[in-house]
């Protein structure tokens, strides 16, 4: 047997943090399958199909083919030298998932799930979207494989994300504005679940984040883990070692889970998730489910939620529509409770500052989501030594956000 190199996948031992979830889809006390009976057989079918795909030696090579030639993986690892100098401390590396086709990490999971849906013989795809990034990625893979696609999007979001709505329509998707509830991402997810119960035989629900009922949190994490696996190997090549800190922004938590998961069993690597603090954690306008929420059940899983004393779900707020979700993936809730990952928050204003810093020092316009991660990098890099390494997931590009940013900077386009 070959001696494992530090970059080779290490078999997960009894003490591994990478073995979850359990057979019931639980990460500690979080996750599970809290759906109506009508949906239960469907999610069991997805679970079985995903297990069969993983066991099929042909599945991963097929996915790898599309990730390489269509998505453009591996995404580069970039040493952000001018940013590092500007911050005056640890070396900052960006994992450049904003260079993927469609401009964000979302397509990693869409590609995996569309291949699964095809294996299952499903002929219609539905998805939910907030800012529209997941909707665009889903519409893209549906166009690629010629499958009809319906994207549910809160009416409020449809109004403020017109370019992405148009993109989805160009790609052939039907965009259904959701007017129920608060007409935002959580309501879009409710509506997608309602569509699924009504179209059980032909439809696959392509969930955008590490939330929803089991097996989605696990499956989306697995498909996104390519981010962390690549980064680990690339950093090994560049620096010959692991990072000291890995940082990612968190809404539902898919880009963060994808970055963190391959590092969970490397105790020397500090993992930091950055939630959206909106106008501030002590206001009611933020999206910090872990910092300010309590465990509860929504959208099929038990996790930390923004909710009132009576268990009614509260609205989230963030300048970044992609972080604007009142829940968080259940695996994050577990990693929070066991203390393996630190969860902090960055405000709208801090994200805007980081957005501009990145643009000017690196010539990269980041999405407002990773701008939250960068806002935290900005805080910690100066406190670290010049030999220390921070790995940050630059999970999306900011073209979609320039209108929002212009508005906040008082610029009329």
């Amino acid at each position: 047997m070959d001696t494992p190199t530090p970059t080779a996948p290490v078999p997960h031992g009894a003490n591994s943090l990478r073995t979850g979830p359990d057979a019931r889809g639980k990460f500690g006390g979080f996750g599970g399958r809290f759906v109506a009976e009508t949906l239960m057989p469907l999610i069991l079918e997805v679970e079985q199909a995903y297990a069969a795909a993983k066991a099929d030696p042909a599945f991963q090579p097929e996915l790898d083919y599309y990730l390489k030639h269509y998505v453009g993986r591996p995404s580069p690892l970039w040493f952000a030298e001018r940013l590092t100098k500007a911050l005056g401390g640890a070396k900052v590396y960006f994992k450049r998932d904003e260079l993927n086709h469609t401009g964000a990490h979302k397509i990693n999971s869409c590609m995996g799930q569309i291949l699964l849906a095809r294996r299952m013989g499903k002929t219609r795809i539905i998805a939910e979207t907030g800012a529209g990034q997941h909707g665009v990625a889903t519409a893209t893979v549906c166009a690629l494989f010629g499958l009809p696609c319906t994207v549910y999007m809160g009416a409020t979001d449809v109004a403020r994300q017109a370019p992405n709505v148009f993109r989805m329509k160009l790609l052939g998707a039907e965009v259904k504005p959701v007017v129920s509830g608060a007409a935002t991402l959580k309501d879009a997810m409710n509506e997608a679940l309602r569509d699924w119960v009504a179209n059980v035989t032909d439809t696959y629900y392509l969930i955008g984040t590490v939330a929803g009922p089991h097996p989605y949190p696990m499956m989306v994490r697995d498909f996104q883990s390519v981010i962390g696996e690549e980064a680990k190997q690339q950093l090994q090549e560049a620096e010959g070692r692991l990072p000291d800190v890995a940082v990612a922004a968190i809404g539902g938590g898919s880009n963060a889970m994808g970055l963190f998961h391959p590092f969970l069993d490397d105790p020397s690597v500090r993992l930091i998730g950055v939630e959206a603090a909106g106008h501030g954690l002590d206001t009611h306008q933020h999206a910090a489910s872990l910092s300010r929420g309590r465990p509860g059940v929504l959208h099929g899983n038990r996790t930390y939620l923004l909710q009132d004393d009576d268990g009614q779900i509260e609205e989230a707020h963030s300048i970044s529509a992609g972080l604007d979700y009142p829940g968080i993936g259940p695996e994050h809730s577990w990693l929070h409770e066991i203390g393996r990952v630190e969860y902090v928050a960055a405000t709208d204003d801090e994200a805007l500052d980081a957005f501009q810093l990145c643009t000017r020092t690196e010539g990269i316009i980041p999405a407002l989501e990773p701008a939250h991660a960068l806002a935290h990098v900005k805080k910690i890099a100066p406190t670290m030594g010049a030999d220390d390494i921070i790995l940050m997931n630059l999970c999306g590009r900011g073209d979609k956000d320039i209108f929002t940013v212009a508005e906040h900077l008082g610029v009329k386009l």
Partner: protein
Amino acid sequence: MSRIATRFAELRAQGRGALISFLEAWDPDPATSMEILRGMPAAGADLIEIGCPFTDPMADGPTIQLAGKRALKAGAKMVHTLAMVREFRRGDAATPIVLMGYLNPILAYGVERFCIDAAAAGVDGLIVVDLPSEEADLMLPLMTTHGLDMIRLVAPTTDERRLPKVLDGSSGFVYYVSITGITGTRTASAEDLADAIPKVRRATDLPIAIGFGVRSPAQAAAAVKAADAAVVASALIDTLAGTLDSDGRAGPETVRRVLDQVRALADGVRQARQAA
């Protein structure tokens, strides 16, 4: 014997099926909602299902979503739903009451405290929509301890292999969701029901209620011919909603119109026996 079992036994002795009428607690306001609840038994409801308002009712169609929204706007909380049942029980010790809702407000209340308070208020059973059998151990032991029936949903997607698992631990009655879809949208055909209900019947001795898409007296009659009870929800809420003013306030006709419809549905259910 529980109130639910007693009621079904009585109806079986009479040779007829049950009408289960639904209302959303505090829709559109506490007084109107209480008056509808109080009036339902006299109008012919054999059992009553009360919806507990929730911001994210993922199995419900637009009608019940809006009912919940109106109730929440009126300030409805779980304690208020329980208070309605307590108030109802002062005048009615026999009509079974089942609460229908989603798990999160129960978790926020505290599962054990909720079971204790619900039982004390006079609730007989719970339908927790997003608590499938895979997760039922979260509530089942406490519900059993406090004498609450766990009423399970069985759907057209529930195959015969899965059915025993779904029925395991269920009591009171079985709620057959007659369509694949959300509440208040489509209606199952008589053929669908004739095909589905015997399969459930073979797997359980519990009474079977048919819900989702039962709207008219004729459909209610068809449901009790195929099974033991008909649940009517969205159709009653549509009637209620039709009497509200543009600000969502109840009008002078609201209570009467809803109860008249309960009476018509009850007639349909009762005539099903004579026709059979």
